[in-house]
């Protein structure tokens, strides 16, 4: 009997030790990523100050320069991608939640599943073939289309989930007003769930901001200026991809500065998502 309880106590301890150390390892990885980006990029950010957000990158091996044009094109590409992604993704999410079980909703579900499971580099390649080749140039538009496709499944799925989470009693109240179904959904349930929709859009934004593969062949690599929607362009993640392994000290430093900005933006976006989704009170 004593042996049995001893065994149980030991097993308990072992279980706790294994799960706790795994959790600690996870925390260490997270802290390490943030710490390394901060340590590596802090000197360059401190040295550059506001110029970081304005100047274009310096020549290879020369001055630091800054990330100005890249920030502009990132903002344009990501906002455009997420805007179009939301214009499609939110209605799709509404349909999937409110017409559950219809063939259209099931087809949409399957399509989104497929898109989210396809490696994002394939999305980039497809947009390359469909847009970049005919236009004979990589462009901000092509990059935005790629990011839009990548963000779409997240926006639609989050919209659907948040609508489906509206308690039945509010749903019944909305439908007890004798309104046509589309009116009850669009004018009552969706506004009631405004935070859920905002969460979906921000989630898509966080997703699009971090993706590199879809913009590899579509954005181009124009880091020194913003050439408009149909000119070659770039994003923060793309700059990291090209600058970090380069032999030039100033470019490697800029890549680290971009890393910190990207990490900070992602953290801000995802904590906004968490805050919004927690604040939905019914």
């Amino acid at each position, binding site marked *: 009997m004593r042996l049995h309880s001893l065994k149980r106590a030991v097993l308990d301890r072992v279980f706790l030790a294994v799960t706790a150390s795994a959790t600690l390892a996870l925390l260490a990885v997270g802290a390490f990523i943030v710490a390394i980006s901060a340590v590596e990029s802090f000197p360059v950010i401190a040295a550059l100050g506001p110029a970081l957000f304005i100047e274009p990158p310096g020549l290879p091996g020369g001055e630091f320069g800054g990330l100005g044009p890249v920030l502009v094109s990132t903002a344009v590409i990501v906002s455009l991608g997420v805007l179009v992604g939301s214009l499609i993704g939110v209605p799709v999410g509404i349909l999937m939640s409110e017409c559950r079980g219809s063939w259209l909703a099931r087809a949409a579900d399957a399509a989104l599943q497929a898109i989210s499971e396809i490696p994002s580099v394939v999305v980039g390649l497809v947009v390359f073939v469909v847009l970049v080749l005919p236009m004979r140039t990589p462009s901000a538009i092509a990059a935005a289309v790629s990011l839009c496709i990548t963000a779409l499944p997240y926006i639609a799925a989050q919209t659907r989930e948040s609508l489906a989470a509206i308690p039945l009693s509010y749903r019944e109240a909305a439908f*007890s007003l004798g*309104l046509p179904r589309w009116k009850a959904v669009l004018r009552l349930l969706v506004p009631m769930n405004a935070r859920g929709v905002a969460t979906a859009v921000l989630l898509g934004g966080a997703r699009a901001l971090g993706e590199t593969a879809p913009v590899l062949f579509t954005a181009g690599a124009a880091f020194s200026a913003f050439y408009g929607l149909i000119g070659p362009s770039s994003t923060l993640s793309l700059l990291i991809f090209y600058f970090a392994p380069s032999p030039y000290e100033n470019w490697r430093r800029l890549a680290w500065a971009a890393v910190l900005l990207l990490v900070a933006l992602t953290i801000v976006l995802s904590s906004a998502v968490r805050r919004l989704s927690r604040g939905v009170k019914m």
Partner: protein
Amino acid sequence: MGEAVRVKDLSVWYGSQKALDNVSITVPRGSVYAILGPSGCGKSTLLRAINKLVLLRDGVRVEGEVRVFGVDVYRDPRGEEVLARVGMVFQTPNPFPHLSIYDNVAIGPRLRGQSKGRELDELVRWALEKAGLWEEVRDRLRKPASELSGGQQQRLCIARALALRPGLLLMDEPTANLDPLNAARIEELVKELSREITIILVTHDAEQAQRLARRGALLFMGRVVEEGLLSGILSRPYSKVLQALVAKCRVAGGDGEATEPLLP
């Protein structure tokens, strides 16, 4: 006078579970009609079958006929029009959490395009006065409805239903979650409203049913056991009636068709 609602041979399934079994009732116009029965007997399902809210649940199947003011709401295209004149009040107060007190009442007529501006203001005031809430909220109409107390929220939900100018009001245990004082206020309201509106009241409180209604039906395990004058249905004490039903059901081995749990 005529009938407000006639339900004929109505059966409702949730998936494979039969919640209502061949139910038929007739609700005369201009009265309060009580639907009595223990928890889980199908009262709420019957109420929701009348205004088709039952269709919001997954895997639901409805058979039979429901006529509201003479129109078959499941088959007649005029059903939508008729149901626009049916209001509902729920067991738990459920004002829309993102809307103000005013908008909670105004939203129905506004979205239906029935009235706006001054006219809508008048309608909101009328509905809130009818629901006995006007004096308490007239100074804070723009405040969120969630700031009101439970009893006030329930009266707000009644005002929301009244703003539809309903000919029929469905009430699903509207006092079940209220303290006795607020419950008494709602009962007073029901009495007053019943002079103009037909009301179907679901309740498991037999005394409340007798205070408010003359006619009604007793449901048990998805079936109508008795329908008619409440004085007849409740000629014996309600608890005795239920006990007898449960005992009869046990003896019969609970014939397995209505699979709802018996009593709480």
